[in-house]
C-alpha cells in the first residue's frame, strides 16, 4: 500500500502486566491523501486506542505488541517524543472530543489559536492574528474579532468546537484525527459541525480519520468505513458498499437499530445479544489460535 498517506499494518496492542488483555487485535487500515475514513465502533471498541497509537500518546498501561503505523513512509511507533513533536501539529493534528476541557481556561482564544503559527511558521503576532481571524471566519464564527480576544468560558460548546477545528486546520496538516468531535454537542449543532468539517476537509484536501459511534455520521461524510469491535476489524471498505450491501450481521443489526427520524413510529430494534455473543466467541477463538 505504497500510495497511502497513513498505513496501519497488523497493529496489535495489549495492556501491560501479567494480567494483560488484548486491546487491539491485528488492525490494518489504509488512508489515502484527501480521503475520509470513518473509524466506527461502540465505546471500548478501540477507536481511541488506535488514535492514541497513531499519535504516540498511548497511556503507560498499554503497549504495542506488533505491527507498524506507517505515515509518509516512516513508522510512527518507532519514533521517540522529540521526533514525534516535529510531526505533531505540522503533519498530523487532532480535533478532540470534549470542547469544554480541551481549551485552556486561563488563556485567550487568540493566544491558543496562534500558538502553532507563531512557533512553527515564525509569524509575528500581528500576522498570526490576521491568519487566526481568517481561520475563525472559515469555521463560520460570527464576530471573529470578539472571539479572538475572548476566554473559553465566554463561548458556547459549539463555538468552542469550531475554534478547535480551526486550530487543527491552522497549520494545514496532511492528516487530521477527529475524535468524536460531535459527541459532546447538542444534536442541533452536530449537523452544522459535520458539514463544516466536510467542507473544510474538501477545501484543504486534508485526509481525515473520523472516530465515531454514530452510523448516521459515517454515512454522511465518510468515503470509507472501518468497523471495530473488541479491538478487531469486523468490516472495512467503501461506505456505500459496507452500508449499502451489509454482509456482516453486526452491520445489519446496527443499521436496523439506528433511529429513523423520518419514520418516528418505526420499531426500535436494538442489536440482539446473539450478534454480540457470536462475534465475541469468534474473536476470542482467533485470539487463542494466534
Amino acid at each position, binding site marked *: 500500500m505504497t500510495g497511502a498517506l497513513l498505513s496501519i499494518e497488523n497493529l496489535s496492542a495489549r495492556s501491560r502486566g501479567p494480567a494483560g488483555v488484548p486491546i487491539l487485535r491485528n488492525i490494518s487500515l489504509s488512508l489515502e491523501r484527501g480521503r475520509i475514513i470513518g473509524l466506527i465502533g461502540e465505546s471500548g471498541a478501540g477507536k481511541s486506542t488506535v488514535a492514541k497509537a497513531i*499519535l504516540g*500518546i498511548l497511556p503507560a498501561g498499554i503497549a504495542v505488541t506488533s505491527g507498524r503505523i506507517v505515515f509518509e513512509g516512516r513508522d510512527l511507533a518507532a519514533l521517540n517524543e522529540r521526533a514525534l*513533536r*516535529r*510531526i*505533531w*501539529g*505540522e503533519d498530523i*493534528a*487532532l480535533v*478532540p472530543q*470534549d470542547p469544554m*476541557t*480541551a*481549551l*485552556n*481556561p*486561563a*488563556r485567550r482564544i487568540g493566544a491558543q489559536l496562534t*500558538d*502553532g503559527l507563531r*512557533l*512553527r511558521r515564525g509569524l509575528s503576532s500581528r500576522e498570526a492574528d490576521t491568519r487566526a481571524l481568517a481561520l475563525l471566519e472559515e469555521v463560520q464564527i460570527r464576530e471573529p474579532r470578539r472571539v479572538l480576544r*475572548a*476566554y473559553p*468560558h*465566554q463561548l458556547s460548546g459549539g463555538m468552542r468546537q469550531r475554534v478547535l477545528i480551526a*486550530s487543527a486546520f491552522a497549520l494545514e496538516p496532511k492528516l487530521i484525527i477527529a475524535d468524536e468531535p460531535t459527541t459532546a454537542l447538542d444534536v442541533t449543532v452536530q449537523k452544522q459541525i459535520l458539514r463544516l468539517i466536510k467542507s473544510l476537509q474538501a477545501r484543504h484536501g486534508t485526509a481525515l480519520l473520523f472516530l465515531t459511534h454514530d452510523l448516521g455520521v459515517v454515512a454522511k461524510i465518510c468515503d470509507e468505513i472501518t468497523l471495530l469491535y473488541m479491538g478487531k476489524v469486523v468490516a472495512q471498505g467503501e461506505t456505500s458498499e459496507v452500508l449499502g450491501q451489509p454482509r456482516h450481521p453486526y452491520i445489519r443489526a446496527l443499521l436496523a437499530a439506528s433511529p429513523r427520524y423520518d419514520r418516528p413510529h418505526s420499531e426500535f430494534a436494538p442489536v440482539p445479544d446473539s450478534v454480540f455473543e457470536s462475534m465475541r466467541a469468534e474473536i476470542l477463538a482467533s485470539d487463542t489460535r494466534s
Partner: protein
Amino acid sequence: MNNSLAVIRRLVQSAATLFGVGIVVFILLRVVPGDPTAMMIGPGASADDVIALRARYHLDEPLLLQFFGWLRSALSGDFGTSISLHRDVMEVLLSRLPATIELAIAALLVAVAAGVSLAVLATLYDRRATAGIINVAVGLLLAVPDFVWALAFVLLFGLLLPVLPLSGRIDPTLDIPFHTHFILIESLLTGRMTVFADIAAHMVMPVLALAIPLAAIIARVLTASLSEAMEADYVLLARIKGHSRLRLVLQEALPNAIGPTLALTGVQFTFLVGGTVIVERIFAYPGIGNLGVDAVINRDFPLIQGLVLAFGAIFIVVNLLVDLAVTALDPRLSHA
C-alpha cells in the same frame, strides 16, 4: 460593577478589622498587672511627678474616656510620644518602617523567584530523580523556621565564612546623606553603586532567613498545583501541537496553577513580616521589628500600640492586595 462593590466591601471589612485590632491592643495594655508608670519614672521621683505623669497619659480616667481620647488622637495621626525613645511615635515608626519594607519586599521577591523555579524544575523533570531530590530538599527546608535560619547564618557567616556583615543596615563609616529612609532603592536610583552594594550585603542574610521558609512553601504548593494542571486535556492538546515540555509547564499549566499559590503566598507573607521581629533582632537591623522587642521589654505603651497597629495595617493591606490579585488573575472571575 459587581467588582467595585466587592472591593468596597473588602475595604470596609479591612477597616473594621483594623479597628478591632486597635481595641484589643488598647485593652491589653490597660489591663496590665503592675503600674505602668513605674517603668516610666526614674528613681528619686516625687509623688507629684507620678501624679503629673498619670495625668499626662490619662491613666486615672475611666477606661471608656481613655479609649475615646486615644481614638481621637489616633485618627489624627497622633500616637503619642515614645516613653523609652522620647520621640513622637509616628515619627519613629515612619523612620524605621522603610527598612523593614525593603527587607520584606526583597525577601518576597527572592522567595517567589526561588519557589517558582523549584516548582517548575520539579514539574519539568517529573519522572526523573531530580524531582525526587527537589521534593525531599523542599521538605527539609520547610521544617526550619526563619529564626533558626537566621541563627544558622550567624554561625556560618559569622564564624566559618566571615564574608558578610553580621549586623546593621549600612557600614557606619560610610557617611552618606540620604533623603528618604529607603536607602537601598535610593542608592540604586542615584547611581551610588558602592553604597548600594554595601547595603545589599547587609541585607543578604536577613533576607535569606526570611525568604527560605516562604520559598519552600511556594515550591511545595505550586508543584502540587502544577502536576494537577499538567493532567488537563488542554495540556495534552497543546502537547499534540508540538510544544516542548517547558512551554507546556510555563504557558499552559502555570497560569492555571498560580491561583491557589498566590492566595497562600499572601497569607504566608504576613507571617514573613511577623518574622522580621526576631530576624531584625538577630541581625541588629534597624527596622520596626527590632523596635518591637525593645518596646515590649521597656513597656513603652504608646510605641507598642503604634507598632501593633502598624503591623496590623500591613497585614490587612497585604490580604486585601492578595484578594484583589487572585480575582484579577482568574479570567472566569473578572470576565464573567
